[in-house]
């Protein structure tokens, strides 16, 4: 990357380190931090949306919808994350390819399952094997986002379901007596007031989501933990210009600090949000703010 890095053997100290951490291979570690942040940024709102959908379905008065909502919440919450990740991603990938295969290659006569092999026609491959590597990576990433959203959506649904029930009944009854329709009660009274009850649970989920990001590697996305292990391992001088001993402890220490700092900042933001939402709400926190002073 820098001009001084042309002959690494002559370098020492800080300039060696500068050159070392800017090799194209090492830059992958920094990109993967971006991948993790991007995953969180996309997954959190998607999971919240799934959760909201699940909670509303579970509250429905129509029996069928209620059953679907409850089934989603309890099945996904009950299955271990790792099992879900390993099974669901392969299943969804094969379902998509199977669908494309049926539409795109109707004349295909061979079976799709041949022993261990899952064989679809070339045009049905997702992504196409002719597409460049970055498309394969984006596809894998999107599958990961979707899987994370499904899993964390179920937990979020449970939190939101509980929060909706925690809104004081008097508030709802007052709204009804004012002549509000059911829809209006939901939009103007229930939803704005439930967040304060949902926030501790959702904040907790966000922390767990941050910690769960290393599961990305299970899905074939090379995340920070993968690169920390790969880069930290002993490197022999024969195969790299930057040989070093077992540095995994330093890399993982770096990860530890990264994750700790990240969760700490999240905690501060959540606390702040909590304070703002409590203002004027019919909860103990809100009452305290009113009587004791801010």
């Amino acid at each position: 990357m820098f001009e001084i890095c042309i002959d690494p053997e002559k370098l020492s100290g800080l300039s060696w380190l500068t050159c070392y951490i800017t090799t194209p291979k090492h830059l992958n570690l920094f990109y993967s931090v971006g991948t993790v942040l991007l995953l969180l940024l996309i997954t959190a709102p998607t999971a919240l949306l799934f959760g909201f959908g699940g909670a509303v379905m579970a509250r429905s008065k129509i029996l069928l919808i209620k059953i679907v909502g409850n089934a989603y919440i309890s099945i996904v919450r009950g299955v271990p994350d790792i099992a879900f990740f390993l099974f669901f991603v392969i299943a969804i990938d094969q379902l998509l390819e199977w669908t494309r295969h049926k539409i795109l290659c109707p004349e295909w006569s061979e079976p799709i399952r041949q022993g261990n092999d899952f064989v679809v026609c070339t045009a049905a491959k997702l992504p196409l094997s002719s597409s460049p590597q970055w498309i394969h990576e984006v596809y894998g990433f999107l599958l990961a986002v979707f899987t994370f959203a499904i899993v964390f959506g179920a937990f979020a649904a449970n939190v939101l379901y509980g929060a909706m029930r925690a809104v004081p009944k008097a508030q709802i009854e007052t709204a009804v007596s004012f002549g509000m329709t059911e829809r209006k009660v939901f939009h103007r009274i229930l939803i704005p007031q439930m967040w304060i009850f949902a926030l501790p649970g959702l904040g907790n989920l966000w922390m767990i989501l941050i910690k769960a990001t290393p599961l990305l590697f299970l899905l074939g996305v090379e995340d920070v933990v993968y690169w920390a292990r790969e880069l930290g391992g002993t490197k022999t001088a024969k195969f790299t210009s930057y040989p070093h001993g077992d540095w995994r402890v330093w890399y993982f220490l770096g990860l530890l600090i990264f994750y700790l700092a990240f969760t700490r900042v999240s905690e501060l933001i959540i606390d702040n949000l909590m304070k703002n939402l409590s203002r004027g709400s019919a909860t103990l926190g809100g009452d305290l703010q009113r009587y004791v002073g801010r």
Partner: protein
Amino acid sequence: MKKLIMSTVIWGLTAGLSLAGSHSVIRMGTEGAYPPWNYVDDNGEVAGFERELGDELCKRAELNCEWVINDWDSIIPNLVSGNYDTIIAGMSITDERKEKIDFTTNYTQPDPSSYLAASEGADWKTGIIAAQSNTIQAAYIAATGATLVEFATPEETIAAVRNGEADAVLADASYLNPIAEEDPGLMFVGDRPLIGGGVGMGIRKSDSDLRDKFTAAIDSMKADGTLNALIVKHEIGETF
């Protein structure tokens, strides 16, 4: 909105239809953590014996190849489910693996495995021996009197010997040699058991055309001596 969703779905289902041809790109799956066979160099590219071999094979078979890194433990499941088309990762041809996938003809000779330990007196017969999981060495140790500890990557097996977690590591001599050369604290001990039947490329059972193409390319490299030259250059072991 409904229209938008439908058209997105249709686009997704038909995208790239015109680009599709039979095996226009062959995706080569490798581990990228097993020097000198395959590893990721400072530029972040796959390098090593199998990189050079694979590129030459693709040239001879007139295939357009692309390299993909996948961890060792899931390298066979991901081949079978079609994430890439070949495994070229120092994988020995064994009967157990042949039940799941096909192999091309072997491109290296059966190579004796070696024990690498941190002291001359290390107990390689009944002690704690490290090996990478799902390898022929792991299966071999499990069948002997020694206690097996498995690791997901080759590098971790060496680290286990260095920090005393294991008495010795059993691995291909070609992998251990460069490590032993640079670290005076590590030495070879005990037997050199001959396990495995040479290394070949793993290919889906349903993909016999591709297997035959690569076998033909390997045979042509064996015939004109280029394969031997690569084996010598990367110090992989015996030549043909």
